[in-house]
């Protein structure tokens, strides 16, 4: 490109301290083109800023600049009691708020050595899996929109509404639900909860087929996603990438099976895995996961036991001195909470291991050598939520 355009970005390149591959000398002024993608960009899902180093349209390297949505969640935790901090975690991965709450509550429970009653665990599983479907739906819609298919976005948002309605009826909130409490659940299920959930089950199976009819065998979709953003299982493990991204690369690792929490050990479900580790496999894995979630919900709602929903938790939560790391399988990957307690009512230190943040690391090796359009597809397929990346 012309140097007119280059001059204005010299300062950006000095920002980049990554040792990016030096570009081949090309006829395009022999300079690489440096493009700022974001933070105001329709395809970066919030305020991610990616500095792209391009040779024509070929990506030579990327550098993510994050922190535009940093709210100091971990610091806030040190100044709030355990109970007060609970709603804050919903704001990290705001499209999967229920999972965030589940991870936090279970971590504190583990630290205090109490256990939620069976019924509470079942409710937790149902809501979490519903939330997994909702999260995957949102991912599918936005991912398809990034690749240029407008319609799936509206289909998924229409259907996601059914899940949000259940959340709203259950706890009064649709997005940042604050559904669980330390030691169990605060609310008993409302009358007709089971019927609603069963309705969702029958409602969703054909809807997932509908999404697949739009995309799975679509030629353009195949061309845009096959062999795009390939990452090997070994690379995933080395980078700490988890969730559907890891499973699409052929590694059968799902915390629900590997170290069961809540009531997951009681359900029969499969871990869908891919083979190629490309964008298309990640798409297939997530679609299969939605179906598996339906299976889990079906078993849970049919086998939901009666009983209390709140465990024996003191009025004032004061965990013993110690530390705990507890992680769950959030829709996006391993969501871990590391809590250090000094015996007071507030955590001494709370550290979140967000899946999006870790998965975002894989962006660079996934897009090197691809084109600009693929960067968009890969950001979409990583399924990042900036609230969680920046915290």
């Amino acid at each position, binding site marked *: 490109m012309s140097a007119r*355009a280059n001059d204005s970005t010299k300062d950006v390149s000095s920002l980049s301290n990554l040792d990016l591959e030096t570009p081949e000398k090309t006829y395009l002024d022999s300079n690489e083109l440096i493009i700022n993608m974001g933070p105001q960009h329709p395809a970066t899902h919030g305020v991610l800023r990616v500095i792209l180093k391009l040779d024509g*349209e070929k990506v030579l390297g990327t550098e993510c600049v994050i922190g535009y949505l940093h709210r100091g969640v971990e610091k806030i935790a040190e100044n709030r009691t355990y109970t007060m901090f609970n709603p804050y975690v919903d704001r990290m991965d705001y499209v999967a708020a229920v999972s965030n709450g589940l991870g936090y509550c279970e971590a504190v429970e583990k630290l205090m050595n109490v256990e939620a009653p069976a019924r509470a665990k079942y409710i937790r599983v149902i809501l979490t899996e519903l939330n997994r479907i909702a999260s995957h739906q949102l991912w599918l819609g936005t991912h398809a929109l990034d690749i*240029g298919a*407008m319609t799936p976005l509206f*289909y998924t948002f229409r259907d996601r509404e059914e899940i949000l309605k259940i959340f709203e009826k259950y706890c009064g909130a649709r997005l940042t639900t604050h559904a669980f409490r330390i030691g169990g659940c605060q609310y008993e299920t409302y009358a007709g909860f089971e019927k609603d959930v069963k309705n969702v089950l029958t409602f969703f199976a054909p809807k997932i087929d509908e999404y697949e009819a*739009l995309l799975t065998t679509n030629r*353009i979709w195949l*061309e845009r996603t096959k062999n795009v953003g390939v990452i090997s299982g070994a690379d995933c493990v080395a980078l700490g990438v988890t969730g559907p991204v890891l499973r699409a690369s052929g590694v059968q690792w799902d915390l629900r099976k590997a170290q069961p929490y809540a009531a997951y050990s009681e359900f029969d479900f499969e871990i869908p895995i891919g083979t190629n580790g490309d964008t298309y496999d990640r798409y297939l894995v997530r679609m299969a996961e939605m179906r598996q979630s339906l299976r889990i919900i079906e078993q849970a709602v049919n086998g939901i036991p009666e009983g209390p929903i709140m465990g024996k938790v003191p009025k004032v939560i004061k965990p013993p001195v110690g530390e705990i790391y507890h992680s769950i399988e959030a829709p996006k990957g391993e969501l871990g909470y590391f809590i250090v307690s000094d015996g007071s009512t507030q955590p001494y230190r709370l550290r979140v291991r967000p899946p999006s943040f870790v998965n975002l690391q894989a962006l660079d090796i996934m897009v090197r050598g691809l084109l600009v359009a693929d960067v968009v597809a890969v950001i979409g397929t990583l399924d990042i939520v900036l609230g969680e990346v920046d915290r």
Partner: protein
Amino acid sequence: MPNFIMSYLGSTVTPGEAGNQFWALMYVLIIFAGVSVAVIAMNWIERKALAHFQVRLGPMRVGPHGLLQPFADALKLMLKEDIIPAEADQFVFWVAPLIGLLAAFTVYTVIPFGPSQAVSDMNIGILFMLGVSSLGVLGIVVAGWASNSHYPLIGALRSSAQMVSYEVAMGLAVVSAILMTSLNASGTGTLSMIGIVQAQQQQGVWFIFKFFPLGFIALVIFAIAMIAETNRAPFDMAEAESELTAGYHTEYSGLRWSLFMLAEYAAMIAVSSIAVTLWVGGWMRPFPNLLNAPAWDFVFSLFPGLTFLGLAAIAFVGVARMPAHSFFKIQRIGLAVFAALLGFIALLLLVIAVVGRSADTSVAARFREGIDYVYWFVLKVAVFMYLFIWYRATWPRYRFDQLMRVGWKVLLPISLGVLVVTAIVGVIVS
């Protein structure tokens, strides 16, 4: 005055050909206004149709069922601040949308809405159309360059490469249709748009069905290339909003941006018109040779009126279905007036069809004929326009390298093959 009108209505050639400067100018004005109205209508229809594809309602607030939305948008765009970036090349930035607009509208001078319903019948009509519509790319390239920004520049380079590549396949598809016009006794083809339609009439077949499936394949190639030419989904690489924010017009705003949109939609209608003229029989009604009795003429001439009657009925159903709340009172009245207007037009068209049913040279008969021609032409174009919306709702976007591969490695060989096979079959047949 009647004599004056008849001086045109009685003519069987275009005003340009008759040297009738007044009517030629009138035609230019009518077509300019008509295309602008069509663009506005297309804007509304696209938004509504796309919304209904996507289980939502689309514009509903401004006017009944959002009917006034395009006007509100136009007003908004005109009143918006027209920003010229400080680092932009002022003059080129200013002139770029005009180039695109000029190219898109100049094409209409040779589009035949009927055997005499065109500004002019150039004997190089199709060549002129392809040439002038290819000038639109200059506006895009120059707009991307003048913005002096990365995204517009990449968008402009992409779209110029894309348009230049697809022009090749498009041209070859057009040539295969032109080749079909020469399959007559004299063995002479024509490049005139009107001549092409007349050739279809003489041969008694739309070129889409000629040498089936050769004509059909050529039309499909043209239809794909024309989407790429107009930068529409799934080939909207130049303005891929998820990659390049808005491509070449990222830096544009207000009126200038709306000129780009106007040019884009005008170009869409123009290329659809080429496709209709070349393959789908232009202004001709279905089966003009087979069902050529005057009675059939009369039956087909009822179609325009009946179409408007149907639209009016739909609008009245809309009135009836509106909620009875007082909030909707004005909307109800508005929609009812709109429906009544449609009904009035329908009545007018039906009256003209009945009065002008005899095939004489009275004003009413000539008028009726003209309405028929324009109606069938617009109907066929509308089908193509609907396809544009349908594609946009259904398909993801191609990647740039894939797009070029489709253009050069798929469409080009197929169109060459179709051309050669058409030539061979044509020689064998004649």
